[in-house]
């Protein structure tokens, strides 16, 4: 399903294998600020879509790079050496969505307790303590 972006940022979708080259190119072109790294869970299509938002201070232009990986065993290369901020963003995304960032120097859990099983931000995440909200009526 295509999302219609309301954002002025250019959207670029690439293959996982091209991620490092793409980000290296963008960084060298002046996109020095990695705003965030996160993901979207798309269970209907069986993919997790990683989203990297970059910004160029010089040109004042944002760009969004999207990478789709399978929900099971999805893996992309880490970009910690290109952007130091990626270290923590990748750790968080990995533990919340279950994506592996290969080559990450310190892939420990960041926010979640060690004993939590499952990937909380996936749409099919369940936990005995998770209780659904009562449904909101239309009025």
């Amino acid at each position, binding site marked *: *399903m295509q*999302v*219609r*972006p*309301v*954002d002025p*940022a250019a959207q670029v979708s690439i293959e996982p294998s091209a991620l490092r080259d793409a980000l290296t190119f963008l960084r060298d072109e002046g996109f*020095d*600020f*990695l*705003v*965030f790294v*996160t993901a*979207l*869970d798309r269970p209907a299509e069986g993919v997790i879509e990683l*989203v990297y*938002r970059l*910004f160029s*201070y010089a040109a*004042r232009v*944002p760009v969004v790079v999207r990478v789709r990986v399978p929900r099971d065993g999805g893996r992309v290369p880490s970009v910690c050496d290109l*952007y*130091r*901020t990626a*270290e*923590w*963003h990748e750790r968080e995304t990995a533990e*919340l969505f279950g994506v592996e960032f290969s080559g990450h120097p310190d892939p*420990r*859990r*960041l*926010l*979640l*307790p*060690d004993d939590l099983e499952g990937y*909380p*931000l996936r749409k099919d*995440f369940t936990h005995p303590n998770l209780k*659904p*909200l009562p449904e*909101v009526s*239309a*009025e």
Partner: protein
Amino acid sequence: MSEAPAPDLSTSDEFLLNVGPQHPATHGVLRVVVTMDGEVVKDLQPHIGYVHRGLEKLFENRLYEQIIPYTDRTDYLSAIANNWAYVSAVERLLGLEIPKKVEYIRVLMAELNRINSHLLWLAAYGLDMGAFTPFLYAFRDREEITVMVEEASGGRLTTNYFRIGGFTRDLPASFFPHLQKFLRRFGRAVDELDTLLVENAIFVARTRGVGVISRERAISYGMTGPCLRASDAPLDVRREMPYSIYPSLDFEIPAGRNGDTWDRSWVRIEEMRQSLRILRQAAEGFPEGEHRVRVPRNLEPPAGEVYSAVEGPRGEVGFWVVSEGGRKPYRVKMRKPSFSNFSALPEILRGLKIADLVAVMGSLDLVVPEIDR
């Protein structure tokens, strides 16, 4: 949170110092495990997640309007900025045209919030450094602002004031006289606090040249806000990705020269002065008009995604909202400044003395719930 690799205890002087999660100087519930060699910090392992509430997951099960109070509580000291970032994201999804008056009110509240947050930073920082008096002076000044904010929004700290489309109520009649009184007085109060703490010789000795980070590294670590600007980088969301009426307002972006702890402190003092300038202009040019745009009761933004950022007191606060139609968002990602600022701490502190830990951490102005969400 798993443990960091243990220090090499065979080489005599190395030992682990655990700072937190309960410690007066960490400004929140976080833990820093420092590997020390005598007095010198060899390595630093931050441990976060003590305040992780799973807000992003929570939002996927809330109506768009219901999310607004939660945004206050991510960073309770800059509730307005958080409100604004989220609300403006949803408004862009809806394609709303925001009336001028709403923008002016938003700017007034945001700048008051910025001053409030910086005053609290100064108070707590002074306390860490052993100066007890600036705390009380800063809180006296904060009280004036808090009263104004409460008049307008009903809340002193977690304001929950912004709504999608504007505000539920216009500013009360008592707001502007209070604001004028505040504007007349506060300039001198900033100077007083400046002289008392930031220009104090002992403070300068403890902070100048301490905890330097270069501009390139700061940007690479995703630092924003005063922490970035101290490293000779006058970059501010209000200028880089302008929003609201800021393009028409006249103000400067203060930037430090060396990227050390003192510069980070100085930048915040200067920002308070610049906020005063903005407040004066906004108060003078305050227009007539509607205080909101009507939106449907059942808010269902069309499918789309948007990232909306504002300049909060700590840096760039952004909300990335993905809608697939429906009354609840599909995904909300919160981009918080303290998260990235804190990740730079190991690099800044490596090689410094343990006594500098308190000074440097205070200068980053961290708010832990924002880091953990």
